């Protein structure tokens, strides 16, 4: 661990970021094109849409669902939803009596390749602390999600190496929705675990 003050300390973060880029380009370690490409990918292409498609497919294709649950990382990689090396993504399914919710008590690790960038509320220290200690209350108070006592809640702590993604139960009526429209009924919140879709009908979503 480097000791001492950081070189950019006290400077405007904009200048610090620019200085890093400027120097790294000069050193031949990266190019502006690459940086722009990554930013563009995460702003537009990589968002919850991949996760939504994965969920929608799992809802009606049971072979895919089985593969997804037994080896999530491999199944996702085969579709090109790769992210960073060495990071495993595990898809966990909700059932009528089990509800999963994700947190990262370290920082804000998130399954970026399938869900994009984490929402601001997810990154708050308060969210993490409360969800781990009092999940049922937190879901009710912060997310309007009131779960009966007979539903077990499992809080999944995401780490740098292992990221979780929830496979929510399908809403009623999903089989009548054309396949290409089904991803629209999945939300990022449901894939994090602060929303429950199985209790709703598609017309409510």
């Amino acid at each position, binding site marked *: 661990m*480097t000791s001492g003050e*950081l070189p950019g300390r006290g400077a405007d973060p904009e200048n610090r970021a620019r200085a890093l880029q400027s120097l790294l380009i000069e050193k031949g370690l990266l190019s502006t094109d690459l940086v722009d490409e990554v*930013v563009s990918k995460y702003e537009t292409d990589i968002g919850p849409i991949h996760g939504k498609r994965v969920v929608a497919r799992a809802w009606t294709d049971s072979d895919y669902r089985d593969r997804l649950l037994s080896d999530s990382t491999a199944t996702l990689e085969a579709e090109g939803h790769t992210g960073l090396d060495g990071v495993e993504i595990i898809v966990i399914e909700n059932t009528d009596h089990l509800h999963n919710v994700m947190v990262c008590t370290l920082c804000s690790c998130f399954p970026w390749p399938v869900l*994009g960038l984490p929402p601001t509320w997810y990154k708050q220290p308060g969210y993490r602390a409360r969800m781990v200690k009092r999940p049922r209350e937190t879901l009710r108070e912060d997310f309007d999600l009131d779960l009966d006592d007979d539903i077990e809640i499992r809080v999944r702590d995401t780490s740098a190496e292992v990221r979780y993604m929830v496979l929510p139960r399908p809403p009623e009526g999903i089989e009548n929705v054309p396949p290409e429209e089904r991803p629209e009924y999945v*939300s990022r919140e449901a894939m994090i675990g602060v929303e429950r879709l199985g209790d709703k009908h598609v017309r409510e979503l």
Partner: protein
Amino acid sequence: MNLDHRIEDVLDSCDVPGEHEPAFEAPWQARAFGLAVVLTEQGHVDWNDFQHRFATRLDGREGELSEADYYRHWVEALEETVIEGMASRTELSSRVAAFERGERDASEFVAGVDHSHDHSHDHSQ
């Protein structure tokens, strides 16, 4: 099927709060994010190592964490990582100072602008 069109269709139709949050509040945040990802993809930075440095900086934080705070810690973790092998502390602090003084600006990242006059190509020192 045109995937881009499909993506837009779906995004436009989603009415879930937070779906349309901008990914970054300011360009420097995008830049910081992009730098970390590219350095990792190029193999110059180990992602777990970066995450741990970042996590250490967030450790013990109380209260609300703004997007700006969050990405500032990214920048800090990046600086820490970079001066451990990719550049010297002095090089980086000089470069930061140059941007702070307005001697350099973001135009140097725009394709087609010639900056070769800034750099000495004599590496004999």
